[in-house]
């Protein structure tokens, strides 16, 4: 069982290492992740949202519905924890 797990892990790791070859170098300013849409956020965030911190501008202004959904996720998790861990009343099923 452990051997199967080890073989799986090594094969997956080899696949990922093979993929590393195509990734951009460390700190490359022209990497795909930072050359298409993110310049627009950096240049316009202050003008559009009046927030100097771009991370909070994107989090709370551009993607505020995403953040709302995120709070729903935390709320659901908290409710689930409460429902699982509360003391059962007498007569209530397992």
């Amino acid at each position, binding site marked *: 069982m452990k051997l199967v797990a080890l073989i*799986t892990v090594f094969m997956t790791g080899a696949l990922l290492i093979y993929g*590393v070859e195509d990734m951009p170098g*460390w*700190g490359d*300013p022209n990497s795909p992740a930072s050359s298409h849409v*993110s310049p627009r956020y950096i240049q316009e965030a202050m003008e559009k949202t009046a927030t100097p911190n771009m991370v909070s501008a994107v*989090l709370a202004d551009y993607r505020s519905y995403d953040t709302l959904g995120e709070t729903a*996720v935390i709320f659901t998790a908290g409710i*689930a924890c409460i429902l*699982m861990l509360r003391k059962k009343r007498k007569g209530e099923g397992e």
Partner: protein
Amino acid sequence: MLDYVISKYNFWIYVILMMIGLYAMIGKRNLIKKLIGMNIFQSAVILFYVSISVKAGATVPILSGHSYGHGELIEVAKYLNPLPHVLMLTAIVVSIATTGVALATLILIYRRYNTLEEDEILKIRRDTGV
């Protein structure tokens, strides 16, 4: 070979970290250890995304002082890419939520079976026919 590793060493580190987490999830029998493996896996993904946002010689994506962007163009190369940071904030929140629910589930499992070893739980379930 060494130069090849060093030129993209950050990705190598994340792959190794991720495989440690994956092995803990697949190979370990203790459920708590599986959960810790999942957390290590998530940390590797988060570090990977944050490292993608790095630009050489850039600073944190917060406009400071006089350069408040009134008409003047903000130099893109001077600030880190803010989007991976935002997405990883979301991912950290989700990972906290999953970890909390998983720990609560483990407490329930321990109350019922008095063990957290996967094979012992399966044996109890087989023996009692539940």
